[in-house]
């Protein structure tokens, strides 16, 4: 552990620890520093150059995301000149994408590019010209890819490599013709892609989006976000449930989830809509004349209690057995074992961990 060191940020003395970048220090101090290529889960990349700051002793501004703080460093973040250049950069970025409505902003939440556009109050008009990249639809069921809206920040490529370790996609070509593709340019399905969808949720534009969420934005009703836990394997990834009018419409990863830190797999990301399935049971069923027949709760509950009572009376406590779910919330498991032990009077209860 090294001692805390000090630097100057916009005239204020601030402390930092070794290895911290100027961007990290500035953001910690609540200073506005715009970025597009930055994601806290990824290695600093320094490509969007929006995070430039003025450093005393340097001829030209430096990108703060790649600049490690140094003892005594004197940094300015928000001069008029920097703001002007940042504003121009945002205009340049906007100019390389089409001007029509961004589906991401409409359906999922404002994308980073358009958030910056609003903040700097600029549009794409001044630098109109060629549109970079080519649109490329992919036949997979989950990930919308519209590279017309790509700004070549390569966060998708980097999250696929650095976080997921899948290396499914790569950057191709050079310069203006830079693109994103799988090895040899094939479809995502058939590549190393596991369709985990993490590229979608790091993408700062509408180039990548969740096919299940796109289109939802045009339906009226307020979308509520609720923090929860993925219902699949035992990892316990944190997710945000998106619902409108009491109906699930999508899942986004919780960036501060203690286990997953914003990562999800294909199941956690896209495997939520079974809850909306038409196959869901909606009424209690009781077998009548061989057929499972919908009945009221009272009827089903009374009948069940009465049957359990008579079996216990006739055959004793050990004629009953209960199996709790390893998938449902723990409160149910607690209730079932309490029921078995305190009401049926045996320890004949288990869960599904054996098979």
């Amino acid at each position, binding site marked *: 552990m090294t001692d805390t060191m000090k630097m100057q940020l916009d005239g204020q003395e601030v402390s930092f620890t070794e290895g911290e970048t100027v961007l990290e220090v500035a953001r910690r101090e609540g200073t506005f520093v715009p970025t597009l290529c930055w994601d806290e889960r990824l290695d600093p990349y320094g490509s969007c150059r929006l995070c430039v700051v003025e450093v005393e002793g340097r001829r030209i501004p430096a*990108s703060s995301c790649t600049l490690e703080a140094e003892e005594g460093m004197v940094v300015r973040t928000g001069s008029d000149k920097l703001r002007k250049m940042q504003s121009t950069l945002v205009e*340049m970025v906007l100019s390389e994408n089409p001007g029509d409505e961004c589906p991401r902003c409409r359906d999922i939440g404002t994308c980073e590019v358009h958030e910056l556009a609003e903040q700097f109050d600029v549009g794409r008009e001044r630098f109109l010209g060629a549109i970079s990249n080519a649109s490329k639809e992919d036949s997979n069921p989950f990930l919308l890819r519209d590279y017309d809206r790509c700004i070549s920040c390569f966060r998708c490529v980097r999250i696929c490599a650095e976080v997921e370790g899948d290396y499914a996609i790569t950057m191709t070509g050079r310069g203006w013709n830079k693109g994103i593709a799988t090895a040899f340019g094939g479809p995502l399905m058939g590549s190393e892609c596991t369709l985990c969808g993490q590229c979608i949720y790091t993408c700062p534009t509408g180039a990548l989006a969740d096919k299940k969420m796109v289109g939802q934005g045009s339906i009226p009703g307020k979308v509520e976000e609720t923090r929860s836990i993925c219902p699949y394997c035992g990892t316990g990834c944190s997710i945000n449930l998106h619902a409108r009018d009491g109906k699930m419409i999508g899942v986004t990863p919780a960036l501060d989830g203690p286990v997953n830190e914003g990562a999800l797999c294909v199941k956690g990301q896209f495997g939520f809509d079974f809850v909306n399935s038409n196959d869901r049971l909606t009424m209690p069923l009781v077998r009548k004349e061989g057929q499972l027949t919908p009945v009221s709760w009272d009827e089903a509950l009374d009948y069940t209690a009465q049957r359990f009572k008579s079996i216990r009376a006739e055959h004793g406590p050990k004629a009953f057995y209960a199996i709790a779910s390893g998938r449902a919330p723990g409160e149910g498991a607690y209730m079932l074992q309490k029921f078995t032990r305190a009401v049926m009077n045996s320890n004949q209860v288990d869960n599904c961990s054996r098979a």
Partner: protein
Amino acid sequence: MKSEVEIQDPVTTGILDRLMTQPAPFLEVLHAIQDHHGYLPENALKQVADRFKIPISELYGTVTFYHFFQLEPKPIPDIRICENSTCCLHDLEAISSEVVDADLGVAHSGQVEKISCPGRCDTPVPILVGEKFFHGARAGAVAEATAAEMLLPPETGLEECLFRDIRDGVGTLDGALAHGAWQGPAMAASDPQQVIAQLKESGLTGRGGAGFPTGVKWEAVKNESRGPKYIICNADESEVGCFKDRVLMAHSPHAMLEGMACAGLVTGAEIGIVYLRWEYPEILESLQIAIDEATRAGMLGEDACGTGIPFHILIRRGAGAYICGEETSLLNSLEGKHPFPREKPPFPTTHGLFDLPTVVNNVETFCAVPAILEKGAAWFRDLGLGENAGTRVFSVSGDITRPGNYEVPVGTSLRELLDTHAGGTPDGKAIQGVTMAGISGGFVGAADLDVALDPASLTELGAMLGAGGIIVHDESRCMIQAARESMHFLAQESCGKCFPCRIGTVRVTELLDELIDHSTGNPVIRSHPLEELADLEEVLGETSACGLGLAAPFITKTMKKYWPDVLQDYIEGRRPERQGERDAK
């Protein structure tokens, strides 16, 4: 990271087995596979990915970065013609159509495509078919270009350092030895500190453009405790208008090899790598001969020059990418990574090839070392005029009587170089302006032709000396068009990593195109082109991640400085008169 390759290509297996034991084999492996198959088959790339432990997607992406790696079989090659600043002064349309019908003795598809400058501006226009270069400046003059025909530097009568023996047959080891070559390494081994002192004293700075003191660089690497260390010769000269390294390597290879060996023995590196641009196939051949000769004679190898210390040199070919001349891109390229520039610091002296201490110097820099060691630091320093140390080689092309390479004292006036040594314009037209640094140093206009050719004087004019390429434009040329061509080259060669350069170079090119089109009747859509240009220049020049983008504004800023009224004509939709007539007013 799929490991299993269903069908192994035995040729690729053989290439991998043979080359994987060598230092930095990545590029050579790909070239060897392409040389054999004519392209890079998918299976072969999977094997390469496997062996290098690179994810196949990353390898694929990296391969697509380069102009000259091919992923599809192409049994009959296309015709590729240079389209950049010097060559587009010629009638490319006419040459293209002649070449299609000409009997070049090589099969081609008849398809013509444009390529970036292959460093042959002294014999325009280079035409590439497969791996063979031809050149023809006008219809009826398409002849095969070979290494042997590479023009020797014209005589100037000045005292030279690099060129002092170049016309005397120093291309062979015997010839070089006869002129006292290969003395330096022994000095470097016995007293490395003395060599560093000499280099510092001589004032020799990096000739690739950045101008960092060579002695300081070598000393930094020498002082690093980590190893192994590497010496890298940057022979990826790729800037439009620059062809000096090609001529130095063609005619004086031993000076360069000796310079590298000195660097190795001074710093403790045992491996030297020449990163040679793909577009110099003749040099690949002749340089390998020189290395083999030197190795056989014991100048290189396990006991270099009898010092008892090993020093080996190998060649690694690029594959067509200007950005790989940027030293950190070059390192990534050698390592098999995506050839984007790295963040600096750290610098290559501490974290170079494979993150190890590395000297990266330009061909011209290495070539100067043996002469400095032989004749002394003071001699070299005194070659310069005034405060300037030494000489520099300039590649002169365009509207000039004797295109070629000239070694002149640093501080020589531009006018003397052009008029006295290179013979002025061929038909007596006035010089309207010249490009600097190749093209990325901007322009010097007619009014400033007396400027001294040293870094500070050029900077004062708002231009940059850089790597010493100068393209002459006579009074008949349109300098807005010239600026457009320069910017177009940078846009073509921008690596695409940082936003200001990737978008900015394209937008500036488009803006200039729009102005030029406007004069032919197209409506201008921009209301404030100069304001927008200034904003783009500011972002490019202050926020770009590497020198390519940072230098780009030199072009338009000097254009605006020297030819403001021409620009105004364009903005207002007037087609400018011929430049000469305007200037005469």
